[in-house]
């Protein structure tokens, strides 16, 4: 099963991050085609391609662009490069290897949406990527791919970079906007949605790095070509970060609908020491884990949802049979406890209690009632928290109990015997 390299075709080319090298690979070639079209036509193309947001929610990108409040200016484009989901490192690959691809994608989006100012919000730790991007922006400006009257098209566009301060919550689009405005990074009430009232209360498009990087392909090759790949509702390719107990962890660009089995055993070389697969988390730490017997699930939005999980940000975390699931769940619960912004009660207090109970069970102080209490807390957070962070925190805990209650019981039993 080969990869489908629509975005990463030249990713290993030396110095691809430099403009001259990028141009050799045909970079910025989409702009000539772009400026021949009317903005609305570009939105229609993206709609026709079936491209869906690669940040986690999978919302159709073209539709999102068309929701922008009419006739309200200025408007903004924010690229969400706050890639913080544990297990996910595909945006980093694009940012560090091919920053000009993102710029090219952002120009297309801005042109389609009549936006003159764009921001790239980097995860706080992405200093290197941000430095590379600043260089790339400088090069692009010098060649008039950015700035006033781009390539004589009459279209003006400028991009600014911004480094976050290391909060997971700022990957949530409205918290990102707050942070970008200099406020505390915490989610905003929706509605109003960013398309109506976003950055500085103006209509705003927020897209993930990978989503924007797909756009030049669609302009160059046409939406039909892109839509010819993938499944009925999940079109095109997807960058998947495979991590955990595999022999060859890394980023793989696959056609939507490739099975998880192919991803693990063919692309990633199988499980370490040829151990047995126990579970996998398909879309980053916030998506519910699935047991080994669901390994033939096709990797696309619908199939993973049908299996009880999500494609999320496209990070496949593989867990082999050498692991007690409570331990991995505790690690994830600790992450969410640390990253809850503290705004709403269920997430702030609930993530702490989940962690505390799991820690107790893990340390040999657990009881069966505590597992029930965990289930109860999951129910109290799930769809009750202010933003999806709470739901994300529930994902690993609830699914670990659902599929691997025996791991909990084994620990409880050992504890009971130990104390006796």
């Amino acid at each position, binding site marked *: 099963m080969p990869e489908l390299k629509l975005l990463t075709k030249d990713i290993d080319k030396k110095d691809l991050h430099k403009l001259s090298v990028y141009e050799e690979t045909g970079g910025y070639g989409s702009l000539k085609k772009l400026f021949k079209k009317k903005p609305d036509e570009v939105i229609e193309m993206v709609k026709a391609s079936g491209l869906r947001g690669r940040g986690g929610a999978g919302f159709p990108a073209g539709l999102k662009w068309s929701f922008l409040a009419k006739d309200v200016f200025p408007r903004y484009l924010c690229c969400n490069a706050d890639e913080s989901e544990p297990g996910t490192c595909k945006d980093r690959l694009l940012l560090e290897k091919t920053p000009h691809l993102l710029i090219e994608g952002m120009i297309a989006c801005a042109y389609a949406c009549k936006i003159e100012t764009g921001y790239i919000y980097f995860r706080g730790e992405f200093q290197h990527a941000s430095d590379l991007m600043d260089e790339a922006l400088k090069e692009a400006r010098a060649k008039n791919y950015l700035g006033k009257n781009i390539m004589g098209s009459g279209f003006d566009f400028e991009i600014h970079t911004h480094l976050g301060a290391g909060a997971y919550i700022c990957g949530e689009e409205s918290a990102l906007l707050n942070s970008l405005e200099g406020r505390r990074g915490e989610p905003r009430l929706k509605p109003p949605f960013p398309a109506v009232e976003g950055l500085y209360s103006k209509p705003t498009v927020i897209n993930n790095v990978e989503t924007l990087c797909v756009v030049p392909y669609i302009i160059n090759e046409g939406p039909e070509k892109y839509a010819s790949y993938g499944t009925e509702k999940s079109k095109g390719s997807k960058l998947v970060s495979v991590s955990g107990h595999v022999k060859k962890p890394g980023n793989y660009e696959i056609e939507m609908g490739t099975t998880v089995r192919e991803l693990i055993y063919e692309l990633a070389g199988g499980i370490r020491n040829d151990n047995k697969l126990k579970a996998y988390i398909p879309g980053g730490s916030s998506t519910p884990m699935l047991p080994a017997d669901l390994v033939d699930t096709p990797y696309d939005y619908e199939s993973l949802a049908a299996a009880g999980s999500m494609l999320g940000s496209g990070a496949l975390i593989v867990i082999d049979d050498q692991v007690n699931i409570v331990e991995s769940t505790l690690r994830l619960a600790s992450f969410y406890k640390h990253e809850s912004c*503290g*705004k709403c*009660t269920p997430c702030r207090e609930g993530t702490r209690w989940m962690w505390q109970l799991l820690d107790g069970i893990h340390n040999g102080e657990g009881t069966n009632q505590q597992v029930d209490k965990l289930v109860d807390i999951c129910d109290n957070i799930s769809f*009750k928290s202010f933003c999806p962070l709470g739901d994300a925190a529930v994902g690993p805990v609830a699914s670990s109990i659902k599929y691997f209650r025996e791991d909990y019981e084994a620990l409880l039993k050992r504890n009971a015997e130990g104390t006796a």
Partner: protein
Amino acid sequence: MSVTVRETINFTIDGKPATAPEGTIILEVAQKYGFEVTNLCYNKKLKPFAACRTCMVEVRHNGKKELVYSCTHPVAEGMEVIIHTEETDRYNSANIEMLLVEHPLDCPICDKSGVCPLQDNTELLELQKPRFEIQRRNEPSIKTNPLIEFYLNRCIVCGLCVRACDEIQGVQALDFHQRGMKASIGTANDEPLDCEFCGQCITVCPTGALMDMSSDARGLAALFKNTNTTCSYCSWGCTVQLETKKNKLVRITADETPGVGINEGNLCAKGRFGHGIVHNDERIQSPLINQGGTFQEIGWDEAIEMIAERAKTTINRNGAESLAGLASEKLTNEENYLFQKLFRNNYGSNQINNLQNLQAPYVNDFMLNCFENGIESKPVTELDQADVVLIFNSDLPSEYPVGGNSIRKGAIFTGTRVIFANPRNMRFDHESRIDIRLIYNQDADFMLANRLCRILIDENLVDTAKVQEQIPNFNDLVASLAPYTADATKKATGLTNEQLKRTATQLAEKADRALIIGNDVLNTGKGKETLNALLNLAILLNAGGEGSVSIYPPREHCNSQGVNDMGATPQYLPGYRPVNDAFEHENLADELFENCANGKIKFLHIAGEDPMTSYKSRSIVEQALDTVPFLVVQDIYMSETARKANLILPTATFAEKEGTVTNMTRHVQKVVPAIPVQGKAKSDLEIFHNLADALGSPFKSKSSSDVLEEIRQTIPAYKDVDPARHEQWKPSGVTAKPAFQICAFEELKASKRDFSMKLLTNNHMFHIGSYTHFSKALTDIGPDCFAEINPKDAKKSELVNGDTLLVESSQANLKVQMKINPAVPAGMVYIPKNWPEVPVNALRNGEDGTVHVKISKSE
């Protein structure tokens, strides 16, 4: 009400039919219909935050069942709302349960005990057994500022304080710190709180995490006696809640219950923390007689007898008109009414006045002209629904802080557009999408207002044909506006015609407009011209546009309006009946102090005022008081004025008296005693009664409510006003006389070469009148008087922050500490007034209008 019309939605709550305007959230309607819905982070005055997650209700709509949070979910046509179900209770309880695990539960010593939403919600959900292990926090209290204690162990991170600080006050002194379980509230970098000290954060805090340190009272607030009364400081007329314990005033709080007052539970630093004037050893303890420069205690009977005798002999010797009284902008309506009655009926003198009317007698006429032109002001409770607010020469955060609160609320919920016109570039932060700031040259107020009128006409922004039809002297107005050209206005105000055109366009749109006029207008030397121009502006918008115009005359103190309503003026009897109908009199009180100084007035009775520090010119007051043969002063504290008296009578504070006061927007409101009159003091009402008795013709109306009844019968506009309902008095029996007020054009006077700077003086954010300096809490946050100058002037005179400034006028000079403030324009010196150590009114040299001064560094 805003001109935007919202559709009415029909739905049910627990089976009962209900209606609300579209967009209304479930929680708001449910509360309105009397249903109890658990919630911790909702406050009607603030934007929904939806963080506590304890207000879940079930809704059924279009055949679908949904669990929603009632603080953010709007009602929809045909929706069924069910407030309590097993499910909603379970989920709401879970959150409260988790909050209680960390909460100290030190209720017996908590400020909010008994009035605590956390307690109430726990009770409402019948939450009893905690399922989680108790994990109390135990962090020390933070007391790094003089007034607000942070005891964050009790904090439930509802964010109400943070939002109140931002949305109600526009200050943003508080925000969240940290995240997750460590999330808490605090100041930037944990620096000591340095803000407007409005204490809104204390009011909205549901748990006693923020406490008022001006009071030692702790615990079971529900057991304190609460008295709602009207604040005695500025003329906004906020209702304050006096908390008393064993006949002692322990604290002032605010009641946010709808309908309690016009201020929705908002207060300012003065109103909330300025209660130190009540129980205070510096109060005058007994009647005092001046014996050769020293004051000796005397008995009340003796003192009253002495005044009565002196009055009689003066009347016999010099005629009744040689007796004059200065009524007070701080006394109640009933007291002022009896005071003027004492003069008019008992003494037979019409020589009664008040400080505002002395300085700006045209304000009453302006108000009456508004009535005659059909410009009525809507109740101030509707200010938050105005579409456009023009704040004209008022530094709202200092002058009417709570007015600012209403306007900010309007900006959020009504989309009020705010136009801020002021010579100083003062802070007024709010969420309005349109904020026009007109920072114009000092004293150019009338140019600005007249130019706006002219633009409305020239640009056809109002329907001039309609105006012409309704207002007979329209052509006179047009002619009188000829000098207000774009160029002349630019020269005088510094504003471009584009700015003014944008302003005029905003004002002319179909909208409900409110016009708040600051008291600074009266100090420009062209107060009358400015007010008339603003009236003309209002008439143009009213007659030639759509929507409404509300306009409020400038009034400074809590009863500046009422003292004039009560006829404590030489021009008008109670209810603005012209005096000449009833009296033949010499007009001495118009120039009260001058006529004391020149010997025409032989007997002066000052009730509760300190003109030595409060009146615009100190020198004339000093001459008057030194000359007048007999001076009685009744007051709470030994003021500069009292020191010059022959006889001093100690009076009661607002917390000890009964009556009514009338605010700047003509709401007549109750003053209710919370504690008995302290020590040997007497209420002003009682003193006037004693005097009338001693004169042998007692007043018929005895109690304060009897006097109010008499006022109702005397003043038609007061006839149906119920002070308990915070109602406005409405003009009654006014004959419509539509007319523009035409003033001749006169160019602004240039500064004199020697005294090239202009002085601006008004009330400090933490001080108003002569009492606040006796309140420890207020002197703790506003201890020093600072003159403020522009960086350019500082540079020119080589001055830096902290220098002592020598301010000289042709009359006098004074020394004052200074700081540089870029909000103050070049060429202006700003010095707060009423400061005991800095008698800024001494600089005036007799002429009207702005005082010209020069500055230098004092060695």
